[in-house]
Structure formats: C-alpha cells, structure tokens
C-alpha cells in the first residue's frame, strides 16, 4: 500500500510540471477567463437537501449536493454576468434512475452535475400521485424541468434546463429502456446494478452533450458489446473486454441501422404478424368501440446486405402505418410493398391500424352477473366466457382480471376450470382460464362478502380480458410473399400470425 502511494506521488508531481507548460503555452488572453470560475453561484437550484426523505439522505451522504458540487451546475443560470444571455441549452442534462422505494440507484450527467436534490420535486409529485403511473411525466421546478417515464418499476427521470419538445425526451427515455431490454434481456433494477458499467457506457454513447447520438441498437452493440454469459467467461480467461475493439463503421454507413459484416450459417428471416384488439364492450354485450392495432415484428438473421420485399394480399386493409426507418416509404406509397434492408436481429418492421370502417370481429363474449344488494353483506358473482367469431381457431391463454370495489372484503368463488386468485389488499381478482373449450364453457361462480355497514358500490367492476389466438390475424391481413435480393443464398423464411387482446374491457 505504502509503496504504491509513494509510486503515485512522483507521477502527480510530474503531472504538475507538465501542467505548467501547456498552461503558459495556451494562455495569453485566455487566462482572464479562469478567475471567473470562482464567481460561480454556489447555491443549489433545488430546495436544498434538508427536505429529503430518510432514504434519500443516505444517498446524499456520498458527498453529493454540497455547495462545491452545486457550483458548476448553476453556471448557466446565474454564472458570470456576460453569460446570462444564452440559456445553458442542452437537451437532456442528466438522468436519474429511481426505483419503486425512492432510491436513486444510478445517475448520469451529460453536462455539469445536477445535484440529486432536484429529485425531491419528483418525490413530492410521486407522493401526491396515488399510483406510480399517475406521476405527471413533466414536473417543473424552479430551475429545471423533470421529465420522467415509468417502466419496469423504474422511474427514468431526465433533467432538462430549457425548452425542448417534451416528446423528444420522453421518446428518447423509452428508447433507452428499449436498449437496456435489448442488451440485458430484462430491464430491472438488479440487472442495471449488475451491469452498471455497460449501462453507463451505453448512456455515454447514446447522448452527446444531451443530444441523441447513436440510438440504433445495432450500432450501439457494435460500440459496446452486450454482456453474455459466454463472453463473461471468455473475458475472464482472456482478459478481453466488452468494448468492441474494431471501430464501428455502422454510424458511417449508408444503412445506419445495419451492422456491417454480418455472417450466419443458417440464414433465416421470421416475421410475426401480431394483431391486438382494443375494445370496450358495454353491459349488454354490444361493442362500443373496437379497433385493431397490428405490428409486424421481425427476427432477421441474414448474411451480408440482403434487400427484402414483403408484399401483402390485401394491403388496402392497413389504414395507418408507421415504419421502421429502414422501410422505403416511396415504394409503399406507390405499390404498397414493403421494401427494406433489414437491421440485424429483432426489430419492429411496421405497426399499423386497421381502418375503423371495417367491422371488427370480436372473438369472445363474456356473460356476467355481478350484483350487490343494498343492506346485505353478500353479493353474487358469476362470469362465463365463450367463443364468438373465432374462424375455427381455439382461444388460448385466456385471463380475466377485474378490479373489485373497495367494499369487497373477500370472494368465495369456484371456477369450472383454471385457477383464480383474489387479493384482499389490492382488491384485484384474476382468473387464469387457459383454453376455451366450446363444448364446456369456463365459468367462475360464487359470492362476495362486503364490508358490513357500507352501502352497495356505485359501479360494477370492469372486466379486463386477455386472450390469444394462434395462426390468425383477425383483420384478415395476409402476407403474400417475401423476396430477397442482393444476396445469393436461399434464406429460410417464416411467417406467423397471432391475434391477442389489447385493451379489451367489458363493462358490467
């Protein structure tokens, strides 16, 4: 230890000497600029850290939020007099990751450091909101604006200082989450903590001075290799690293979303057409609104630079589409053909909306009888789910959830199939039905016990439904053919259809 310290000292001395020379070399007129640093305003922009909650105080102990640290942060707002005019214009100043219990477990600054105390405003808003998703995405504070997204039980809070389109930041934050998911499989607090260095490096590459730089995951993966078990082992043995040792050329390429030099032994391209039905069904079983939202997710593992075209039997069905940037828009406009050089790996090629004019076939129906009686502490509960317009396909993965009124204490139910749970704290009933057998319709019957003394709830609970139908695109969309140009091999091509329930609600 001691020897080490000694060893480092001369280095520091050397450093000092070296520092002098360039200093003199550079200075001249510049030197006048340096004293100004001391003039920077030391007051933190937030309310200070006095009001931080217990959990946060712990974080603050790391030496954060002191006056010294507060200094540079204010440089833009109240720094030197001559600097008052330009706002410290940066798109995204800092990013804080906050978990459900209110701990800031990661912070990244793209410019000067913003004290974590700024998050106190966020915690305040969080307390005010009853649920996590009710935290307003934009929170103004005296010196900053906090824009946040909530995903995977983590708040991603971006700190910005000046006018910026809020969607710009929000969309970017979602892109960050997507990237993490892409890198680590799941985006959770544990995962982020385990891979903190990779996360940090990725964030460093994604933004330059607060402005998005590389957001295509293909490019990022070239810059910083995602960790895999195999690579971890190899790195340990060989001492190599996650950072790509070649310089990525993807950023410079004409198809920035595709890596260069892709090679596969099995060349395959899979496309999943997934449609979701969003519907609101009213009490009597008639449809209030129903629409189909579809996506085509692709998993393309092809060597080289393949150029694909995908055509539909009935492209006119698609009313509103949005594309991955790789799709040639002109071609779609004129011929309704998707022509593109795909990114490598998984990506969402297209999302679409089926025009509202087409009647949407609702594949399931729900018969329900939920009643509370005034004065009685018992209520009746009965649900039956049945198939309807399924084009001969089986409905699978049926799941019924319902948020019961607060007055419900407990439920005694017997399902004809599947399992059910009722959480007396959150009052959430969920029934995992599984497959629907048209011969023997699944049902859930029983009684609810209500809190004594309270009168009957105003509203019957809404029933949320989830289901899946394999091999069917409910809108009738069909892929006609998929062709590949530009490469000589024959790829394996696969197309899968699926229909799912999106936001499917039955009002009772």
């Amino acid at each position, binding site marked *: 230890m001691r020897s080490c310290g000694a060893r480092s000292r001369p280095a520091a001395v050397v450093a000092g000497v070296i520092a002098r020379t360039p200093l003199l070399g550079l200075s001249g007129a510049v030197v006048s600029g340096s004293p100004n640093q001391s003039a920077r305003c030391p007051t933190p922009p937030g309310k200070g850290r006095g009001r931080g909650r217990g959990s946060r105080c712990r974080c603050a102990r790391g030496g954060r939020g002191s006056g010294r640290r507060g200094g540079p942060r204010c440089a833009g707002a109240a720094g030197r007099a001559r600097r008052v005019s330009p706002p410290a214009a940066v798109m995204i100043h800092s990013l804080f990751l906050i978990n459900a219990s209110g701990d800031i477990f990661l912070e990244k600054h793209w410019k000067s450091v913003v004290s974590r105390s700024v998050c106190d405003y966020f915690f305040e808003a969080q307390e005010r909101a009853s649920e996590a998703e009710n935290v307003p995405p934009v929170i103004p504070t005296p010196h900053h604006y906090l824009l946040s997204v909530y995903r995977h039980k983590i708040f991603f809070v971006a700190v910005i200082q000046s006018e910026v389109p809020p969607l*710009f930041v929000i969309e970017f934050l979602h892109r960050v989450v997507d990237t993490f998911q892409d890198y680590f499989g799941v985006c959770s607090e544990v995962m982020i903590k385990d891979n903190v260095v990779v996360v940090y490096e990725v964030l460093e590459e994604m933004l330059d001075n607060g402005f998005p730089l590389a957001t295509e995951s293909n490019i990022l993966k070239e810059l910083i290799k995602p960790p895999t078990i195999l690579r971890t082992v190899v790195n340990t043995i060989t001492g190599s690293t996650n950072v790509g040792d070649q310089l990525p050329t993807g950023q410079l390429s004409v198809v920035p979303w595709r890596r260069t030099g892709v090679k596969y032994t099995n060349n395959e391209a899979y496309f999943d057409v997934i449609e979701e039905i969003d519907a609101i069904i009213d009490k009597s079983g008639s449809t209030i609104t129903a*629409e189909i939202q579809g996506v085509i997710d692709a998993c393309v593992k092809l060597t080289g630079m393949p150029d694909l075209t995908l055509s539909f039997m009935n492209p006119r069905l698609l009313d509103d589409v949005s594309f991955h*940037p790789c799709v040639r828009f002109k071609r779609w406009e004129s011929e309704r053909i998707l022509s593109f050089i795909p990114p490598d790996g998984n990506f969402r090629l297209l999302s679409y909306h089926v025009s509202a004019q087409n009647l949407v076939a609702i594949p399931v129906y729900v018969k329900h009888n939920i009643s509370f009686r005034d004065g009685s502490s018992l209520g009746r509960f009965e649900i039956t789910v049945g198939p309807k317009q399924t084009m001969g396909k089986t409905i699978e993965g049926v799941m019924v959830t319902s948020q019961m009124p607060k007055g419900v204490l407990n439920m005694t139910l017997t399902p004809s199939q599947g399992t059910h749970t009722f959480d007396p704290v959150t009052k959430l009933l969920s029934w995992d039905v599984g497959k629907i057998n048209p011969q023997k319709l699944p049902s859930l019957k029983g009684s609810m016990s209500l809190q004594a003394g309270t009168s009957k709830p105003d509203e019957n609970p809404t029933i949320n439904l989830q289901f899946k139908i394999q091999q069917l695109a409910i809108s009738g969309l069909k892929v006609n053919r998929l062709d590949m140009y530009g490469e000589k091999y024959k790829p394996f091509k696969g197309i899968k259809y699926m229909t799912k329930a999106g936001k499917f609600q039955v009002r009772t």
Partner: protein
Amino acid sequence: MAASPAYGEEKGGSSSLGEPEYGHDPASGGIFSSDYKRHDDLKEMLDSNKDSLKLEAMKRIVAMIARGKNASDLFPAVVKNVACKNIEVKKLVYVYLVRYAEEQQDLALLSISTFQRGLKDPNQLIRASALRVLSSIRVPIIVPIMMLAIKEAASDMSPYVRKTAAHAIPKLYSLDSDQKDQLIEVIEKLLADKTTLVAGSVVMAFEEVCPERIDLIHKNYRKLCNLLIDVEEWGQVVIINMLTRYARTQFLSPNQNESLLEESTEKAFYGSEEEDTKDAKAEAASLAKRKPYVMDPDHRLLLRNTKPLLQSRNAAVVMAVAQLYFHLAPKAEVGVIAKALVRLLRSHSEVQYVVLQNVATMSIKRRGMFEPYLKSFYIRSTDPTQIKILKLEVLTNLANETNISTILREFQTYIRSMDKDFVAATIQAIGRCATNIGKVRDTCLNGLVQLLSNRDELVVAESVVVIKKLLQMQPAQHSEIIKHMAKLTDNIQVPMARASILWLIGEYCEHVPKIAPDVLRKMAKSFTNEEDIVKLQVINLAAKLYLTNSKQSKLLTQYVLNLAKYDQNYDIRDRARFIRQLIVPTEKSGALNKYAKKLFLAQKPAPILESSFKDRDHFQLGSLSHLLNAKAVGYQELPNWPDEAPDPSVRNVEVPEWTKCTSREKRKEKVEKPFYSDSEGESGPTESADSEPESSSEESGSSSSSGSSSSSSEEEEEEGSGEQSEEKEEEEKRTKRKEKEGSRKAALGSVASEEEEGARKAKKKVSQGKKSHTETSSEEATASESSSSGSDSGSEGDAKQKKPLSSRAGPKEISLLDLDDFTPPPPQPVPSSNIISTSLVTDLEGLTLTDTSLAPTLLSPAFGTVRTYELLHRMAGEGLSVEYCFSRRPFPGDPHMVAVQIQISNNTDTEVKSLRVSEPKLLSGMRIQEFPEIECLAPSDTASVVMGIDFCDSTQAANFQLCTHTRHFYVSIQPPVGELMAPVFMSENEFKKEQGKLMGMSEIMEKLTLSEKCRSDHAIVQQVTSAANVGRVPCGADNEYRFAAKTVTSGSLVLVTLERRQGAAAQLTVNSEKMVIGTMLVKDIVQALAQ
C-alpha cells in the same frame, strides 16, 4: 457499502490473473475499508502496468460515479491513463475525465495533448471521438483550442467528423459565449453541408447558439426541406421545429382568407377525410378569387416534404410534423395529422399524456379534425387518472349537437367510476357540455341534480358547484330546480353541498319566495349542529332574506345572528357581527347600511365554463411551454405571420450552376429510390474517402445517379396526385420562373430546366412511344407502370422513355436485382455482369480528397458553359430549327451512351406532327437510342428531348434522319472529343499510379501559352472542364492542375495534366490509351486555353 457485490465478482476475475496483492485485498471492497484506503487501492491498480488491473479499477470508479459517489480525488491517477492503449480503459478514462475535468482544471490540461493528437488521426472515428471528448471537457482555458479544433473539424472531409463538430458548437458556446461570432461562422459553413448526417446536428447548434439569425437559413432552406426525410429521427425533430419558426416569418398565412369564415362553415371544411378536402379546395379556390393568395412554392415544399414523416415510428417526429401542420398548413390540410396523432395514443402513457394535451388544444380550434376519431378518446377503466382527465377534456371539446347524446351516454358510465377524481372531472365536463350546447342543458341539469344524492362528498360537491354555475346562467327558468335543491337540504349531509344549496337559495330567493324563509327556519333549528361552512352560508341566507323579505324573516335572522354570536368559531362570530352592522339599521350604522342590498344582492356574473386549453395555442404546440402553459426557459416565441411576404428570392441558391442543374435533371429521372438514398448520393464520395470499402454498399452504386432532390421531387409528384390543381398552378409558376431564368442557349441550368419542361410535354405524347418500348423492356417497364399512381408528371414519362434501354443493355443485371428503384450504373471501366461489384468499383473510384468531391461520382456535369450546336438550321428545316448540346449527364438507359440533348423549336405557323428519328446511318459499333416520337409540336413551341448515342469513342458523326409527318431532314451529330468521356474522381496517388502506366506512346505533351484571361486558377479549370468533360483531381502542387475522365464506351482512362511554368507558359500532358482521343483532346484544350 463500498463496492457492491456485483463488482466483487469482477474482482474475482481479475484475481485469477495472478495479482493477489491487488485483486484479493479484502480491504478494497470490504465494508471495513475507509474511503481513503479504498481509493489508495484503486490508485495502485491504476498505476500498475497491467491493462486488466487498470480496467478493473476504472470499472469500479465508473460504478462509483454512476451511483453518485465522489471519485474526484482519483483524478491524477486516472488522468495518466488517458493515453492508454487499451481501448476500453481509454473509454472509461474519457467518461471519468468528462465528469471531473471541470473540478480539476489544471490536471485536466494534462490530457489535452492526447486529444490534439487524436484530432490529426487518419481514422475519422478517432478524430471524431477526440473532438467529442475535448469539447466535453468544460475547462475554460482550452476554449481557443476547442475553437480551433471545431473550425478544423468543420471542414473535415468525413461527414461524421463534421457532425461531431456541429455537436461541439453548443458545448463551446455554453462554456464561453464570447465565441458566438466565430461559432456562427462555423454554423454557417456547416449549414451549407449537404449530408444528412450533419444537417440535424448543425440545426441543433443553430437553435442553441443563434436562433435569431434566421437569415442563415434562407440559402439552405430548400436543401433542408429536401434532406429532411433522410436525416436521423432526432435531427428531424429539431429541423422541423426550426422550419416552423422560419416559415412563420417568411411566408404569408395560408388562412388569411378563411379567417373571414364562420366557425360553422369551418366544420364542414374539415370533415377531414380525403374526399372533403376537395370540396374544401374548391371553396378555398373561390375564396382565393376574392383576395388572391398564392402559396409560396417553398411553403408548399415544406408541407409536402414533412408529410411522410407522419408515418415515423418516433412519436416526437410525428408530433413535430403535427405542430408544423397546425401552425403552417392551410386549414383544409391540417386534417391529415389527426390520424397520426390518434395512433400515438396507443403508445406509452407518457406519450399519450403529451399528445392528449396537444390534441386538447387543437380540438378547440379545429374540432372537425378529430371528430371522426371520437371513439378513440373513450376512456378505459385501466387508464391512469391523468390520461382519463385529458381524454375527457378532448371529448368535451369535441362535443357538438350531433354527437352529444353519445358523449353523454359515455359520461354516464364514467360517473359511476371508482376513481373519484375522475368522476369529479366528468361532472365538470358535463357542466361544460351543458353550457356550450343549449339543447342538452336541461338533460344535463337533471342528471346532475340526481347526482346530488350521491354518497360521495366529492361528487356531490362537484355537482352542486356545477349546478350552481349552470343556474347562474339563466336562474329564472330553473326555479323548479332550486326548489328541488331546497328539498334536498333534508337529506344531503355533505356540508359543502348543503352550503352550496343555501347559497343558491339565498342568491335566488326572489325566485323561490315561499320556500326560502322555510329553509331558513329549518336551518335555524339545526344551526348549532351544522358544520362551519354551512353556518356561514346560513348567516348569508338570513342576511339576504332580511333584505328582500324582512317581514317574514326578521325574527329568524335575529335568532340566527344571535346563535352565531356565541358560536365557538370566531370566523362565524365575526361574520355575524359584521352582517348585523350592515343590514340592521341602527343609529350608529353608517352609510353602508343604505347599500346593503346592493352589496349582498349584486348581480353576479355567470362563471364561464371553458376549457383550460383555450388559447394555449399561442405557445408552439408540442413544446414544453405549451405543456406547462407557461413560458419555459429558452422558449422561442412562435412569430406571427408577416403581413407582407418577405422577398422569396433570398432562398434562391445561385451557387454553382451545376448543383442546380443536377438537381433539376435528377428530378426528371423518376426512378424509384430507396428513400434514404439521398444521403449516400450526397455524401457517398466523401464518406468513402476514409471508411473501409464495405461501408459503401451496393446502395451507393445505385444512388450515385440519384440525389437528394430526386427523391424529394418524386415525392412532389406523388403528392401532387391528390392536389393536382395546385400542382398545375405551381408548374405554371415553375415554368414561368424558368423562362425568366433565362436564355435557352448558354447556361446549363436553363437548358436543364427547359429540358424538363420539354419532357413534361413529351410525356403527354409519350404514350405511343411507351407502348413500343414496353415489349422490349420486360420487368422494368412493368415495374414503372405499376408504380405510376396516376400522378406522373414529366419525369415519369422521361424515365419510362429511358428505362427500356437499360434492359436492353444489361438484362442480366436487372434480373439479378429486380429492383425498379435501381438506377443503371454510370460508365464502367470494365463491363461487368454483376452490379454490386461494379458499383463498388465506382465507389472506390470515388475515393477522393478534393472539395469538389461533394459532387456524386461520375455524375456531375462539370461546371462551365455548355456549347450548343446546330443540328438543323431554321432555313434548312423549313421553319423547324433543331439545336443540340451535350448535357454531360450519364444517359440513364445505357452507360455507354453519350446523352445528347436536343431542342426542337417549331417556328412555322402550323403544327409539326410525329417528329421522330429514323434510318440512322452509323458506322459499325455505333448505336443510337432515339428519343420517343413527339406527336405534335404546336407553332412557336419548343420541345426538348434526350437521345443517347454510343460513338464508340470516335469522333465520327452519327448520321440519321429527322422526320416529321411531311419531311425528312438529313442531320448528323459530331461529338467534340471532350464529350466522349465522363469525369472520374481519383486521388492524387491513384492519378500518379495510373499516369505511370500510361507513359510513352500513350503520353502526349504540348507546350502552350496561356491567354490573358486564363491565368487564374478558376479560369483554367473552367476552360478545361468546358472543353472536355473531365473531373478535377486534387493536386499537391500549386502550379499543376489534374483532371481525369474515362471514355464513355470503352472506359479507358484519360488523364490531363496542366503544369504552369513561368509567366504564361504552360505544359499540357494527356495520357490515354486512345491516342487519337488524346491527340485531339490536346488540341482542343490548347485551343481553349490559348484563345
């Protein structure tokens, strides 16, 4: 506490490398170690000469930074590693440096030289990353270094480095705003950059440094519009927002006429589906007559080029386009954004939140736009409350007489929701619907009255408040309801509601003269048990009754006031005393007594129930300020439309003629392009200058003959289908402009423009010609036919006329690729059957280091004037005069052909019909691709067509007949030798290498004396390039000029070197396999330079 377990594992990894004394040290990660000790350990690791240990240490340091721990005391140890060879260590050191440099400025300077070295690296990525880190170090003392680095990088040949330079500008600016003027210069320079990579970043810099310098945009406006679709998504957002502001200052309001219209007609206006827009158009047209408004073509260009971006997957881009349309588009066209915005409602809830806020604002001004999507705003029980409330807002804004019943039915379900905040908002919404739509007022009121019996306090209070507001609007008609509410006092226990009812009765006691005293009687009885707010209102009621009906209520009032006098709450006691003094006349009471009635029973204005989103649109939509409804820091006010349009000519770009020309001609080649191709077209050559060959894919091959404007102009045309009328109008204007632009002889630009014009005409007549080609052109023609969406204008016809050739020339190639968005490659040195490889070759040729390299390889017609030759004199042609020139563009159909642009003018006073080429008499090997027959040429009309001739690299004339329906003319085209080649780009080294191969017989030298006017660099280049179609090659020496070209047919190289000697003397050297060509070329060039 120190290093989390996760790093423990990594440490284990390092220990296995056999460095127990560092890696194992339990103190390093243990909870017992003090900060000092832990850092000591890290220092030690950093000082070691093992990269793995350094890496380990850096990882732990970065993890500390990430968790917000202070690691600044490690600065000296870390900064030493800045020059570390290991790339990962280096990266992490950068991360550290950027984070702490500001705090340790002196030490940070140590690292600067490393970056300065990096700035000179031959690899563009290293240059870029050096600049990036250098500019991120916020140390004021290095400002001059940063400034230099940025300036240098701004003229770097790699667009990626230039992009990084653009990124660095705001960094430097925030460090030292005194640099503004210099930075603006750099911005100005970068704004002129033609690559999509740079565009987004430089506009961002512009927005942050000098958003007020709108004049910098003028010259780049059209380019930005055209590049927009290929810029990366984040850049798009910034550019669109900037262009919105720009357009607001430069164009006239497209709605100035329509503002006269009433809201009602407006509704019909944007029933918003496509069909309706036509009506709207007609209407707009009729209005336009009243007061002519013609949209500036540049304004139209912006609208047209942003529209496809509504399809972007990026919500921010969609929103940016939506706000652009909202602020800039004619009302009739705003409707297109609705669909895209509704689509965003499917996204994450944060996105929904922002979009709904904007929709709410838009739906007030443009209700019709969202009406078809009413159901998309229906609320689900699973929506977060803030989303529910916003949706409710939109639904309320959309409510009108026709849909109110559906909306109210929907509201009824909402009222029973468990989410009480939401229920309260619903009640408010019902109140607003009731005030806005008279028809349903009574229904709403009755519904609300029923809600008064709700158990939830919030609901009742809200209902009472809303009822109160509704009643205030027309109290006379609703005495029934007031009576009903009076009865409710018996049942309703919610204090707030009771208080509100009492206030109502007091306020309108004249309408319920019998009931009011009775209510007071009851309340007096229960006074002591009431809540405070109720007591206050009881006093209020008593006072009002005393003033209006003192006979019946005098005693009651006295009683109530006495009760209140001894109340526990001092507020109530105060109020009682105050009121007693006011209303009960005593001797002491002053003048106020007389006015008591006026004080208490003054007419109270009815509250106005309107959306909180009203008038929010004075903030630019989609902005943070709009969202917060308050001006955010740095918000740029959206300017109002000017009354008088500023001079539109400022946007004309008069820079090199050839740029304009290429863009024009490209516009003609309606060849389906991948929409991202522009960037390659623009940047291809420069990009490949430094990157590995792989990075330039096959794409760039096809793109080299396309260009930014090609795709955008296609788009113009496609869009035009919907808006033909406008299109025509614009075309007219365009032609006019062109006519103005000039004489049809000299300037290439005008030739091209006329060519375009001619092509348009030709297209009308093209159908016949097309048929004849269809058979030969198998796939291409079908493809192009299928792609014609009925909107083809000239360009498409032109493309069709040219395409068949390509299939003849290389059918094999085309079947291989089968992409109709593929453009035949430019002339090749070695004919090859494989497109990919050949285009790769061209790309390699494109490796160049000059400034001119911005021009696409082999494509650009060299600047200089184009000589026009006469094919048929007016006299000889009996009134038909034909001229031709060499447009120096690759003939689209066949790379081995020289494109000859023919301009036919009919000077007779009769129509000339079926003008065509026939019976070519050619030497062996020569081929000719005639232009499609011109069916009819009106008197004093001019047509311009392009034909291709393969001269087989000889200057022999191509003879053929030009036929009209009556006559045949024998004509011949003899090419000057300089036109038999096309420019190629190569680097100096390549040039020298090639030159070395072409010595001896292949080298021709000639001495000459430069003429007076050919002494300047520019003039020399100009003269040479106009004499021959050659491309400039960079040259190290000052007094030497190099040019290179390839013959069109055989692709043999022609290298021209001009060496200036003392005075006007010079030596010309031409190296070429083709000695004849070489000899003739020497002659031509000497003549050009010596004349």
